[in-house]
């Protein structure tokens, strides 16, 4: 395994706001990472730090073994597609696509042309006027065609319709298998990308709370479904992550079960289900009230 990113005790404070707080992790070469977390959790700030756009308050960042800050050698190998990227006034889609290849040594023009056709991008549309989905698609095209060894997508599919999102996942996977590289996808729409992700970094309130292989994370909890009494009897004193119920039925999420426990549950007539990444993330990061909870309170 080769480490392409190493972050140690990284913090970024904006006045009293601790946007990123004592974060440490490594990214290995040629994997797809999910950087998950709620809005304002610190995902964009973290990626801005990794790409030298923001300056760290403390801690260390090494990208390909070197600090990325003002380092042309490193930054040429990195592509950061920022959800809130600013473009010069009057820049049209074609200007973005004309200028991007100058900056990325691995740029594949044929691939870019194909993507422009796939996403039906209006080349003469002004970046300020095109729809949010088209704006995102421009970023997707640049991010994929740049073939940067380390590529960050910050909320890449904001506003993309279902067809375009599917297109993004398909093209990303196809191209990734032909040209392996390290990709970090940041998002709060987790279920849709869940299958793409090999490893998950979950950030909440500036802190890294999960750094785990996606499969391990999915297996870390089980939902037990059945008659209320049978479920309660099985659960006993186990820690309950989540509880749902309807009439005499109950659905309870508990931490990982051993094989014996699974057999016992089935013998008791209970059904065992997986837990989606999204559900897990919701449970792990809902310590503070969500919009929904606030409204229903």
């Amino acid at each position: 395994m080769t480490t392409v990113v190493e972050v140690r005790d990284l913090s970024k404070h904006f006045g009293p706001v601790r946007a990123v707080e004592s974060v440490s992790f490594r990214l290995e070469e040629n994997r797809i990472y999910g950087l998950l977390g709620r809005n304002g959790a610190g995902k964009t700030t973290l990626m801005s730090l990794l790409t030298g756009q923001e300056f760290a308050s403390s801690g260390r960042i090494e990208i390909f073994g070197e600090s990325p800050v003002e380092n042309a050698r490193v930054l040429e190998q990195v592509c950061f597609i920022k959800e809130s990227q600013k473009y010069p006034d009057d820049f049209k889609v074609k200007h973005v696509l004309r200028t991007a290849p100058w900056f990325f040594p691995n740029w594949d023009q044929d691939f870019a042309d194909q993507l422009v056709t796939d996403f039906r991008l209006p080349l003469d549309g002004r970046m300020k006027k095109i729809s949010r989905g088209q704006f995102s698609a421009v970023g997707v095209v640049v991010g994929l065609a740049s073939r940067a060894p380390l590529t960050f997508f910050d909320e890449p599919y904001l506003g993309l319709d279902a067809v375009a999102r599917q297109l993004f996942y398909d093209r990303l996977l196809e191209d990734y298998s032909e040209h392996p590289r390290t990709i970090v996808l940041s998002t709060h729409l987790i279920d849709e990308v869940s299958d793409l992700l090999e490893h998950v970094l979950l950030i909440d309130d500036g802190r890294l709370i999960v750094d785990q292989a996606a499969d391990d994370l999915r297996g870390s909890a089980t939902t037990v479904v059945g008659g209320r009494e049978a479920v309660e009897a099985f659960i006993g004193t186990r820690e309950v992550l989540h509880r749902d119920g309807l009439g005499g039925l109950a659905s309870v999420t508990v931490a990982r079960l051993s094989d014996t426990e699974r057999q016992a549950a089935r013998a008791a007539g209970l059904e065992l289900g997986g837990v989606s990444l999204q559900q897990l993330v919701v449970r792990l990061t809902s310590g503070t009230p969500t919009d929904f909870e606030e409204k229903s309170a």
Partner: protein
Amino acid sequence: MTTSTLPAVATARPLPRRLGNVIRLHLANPFTILVTPLMVLGLIFLINWVIWLLVRTATPTDPDTVADVSTGLQYSGASMWTFVYMMVVAIMAMNLTFSLALGFGSTRRDFSLGTAVTFLGLSAGWALLYTGLAMVEKATNGWGLGGAMFNSFYFGIDESWGVRLFNAFVAFLFFFAIGTVFGAIYVRFRARGLILFFLALALVLIGLVALATVTASWGAFAEFFVAIGWFGGYALSLPLSLVAGVAGHLILRRATPRS
């Protein structure tokens, strides 16, 4: 530890290539930076031409009057707006193009240097255009109407063409430089920083005015500028431009793109 860190990545592409990319990025949409100002300049020229025609038909045609009107027209400031426009170009470049350049993986240093080269080149281009048109204006006796837009009093009408080219060049450079520093302050310190900067600048200027008044040195002040002439006056802007350019560079070194 089973992991190993990658050996250093391939060396960066050479500096001229990286600066060239920044320059090309500034000029990628030539409409804003070149075509629009040229079109507006052309339009202003047309309007001026019509005015000259009206003046010519409405005034007596004896040589003295014609020469008098012609001299008066040399005080026209019709070509001056381009300087302000270029200052705005510089401000926008610092704000938005900076953001995109960093998004494309450029370093702040490369962006700063590439931008400086771009602005030097644009200043030279505009100065050549202005001086060239002034020569045409003079050769055609004011486009046949005794008009003056480029053969303007403000670039030193009795100076040699070389000096006038220099004057126009450093004037453009000055406006690019102050646009650079305004833009850089905005990107780094946002609107509040810009307001504080202008307040401080106003205080300094008022202080200087007060100083000149109290010490009764306005006469000496005027004499100084008369003595150094147009060339000296324009040359004096060079250190100011240099300070503004370097300040812009230093401010940008710790700036982060706006989002």
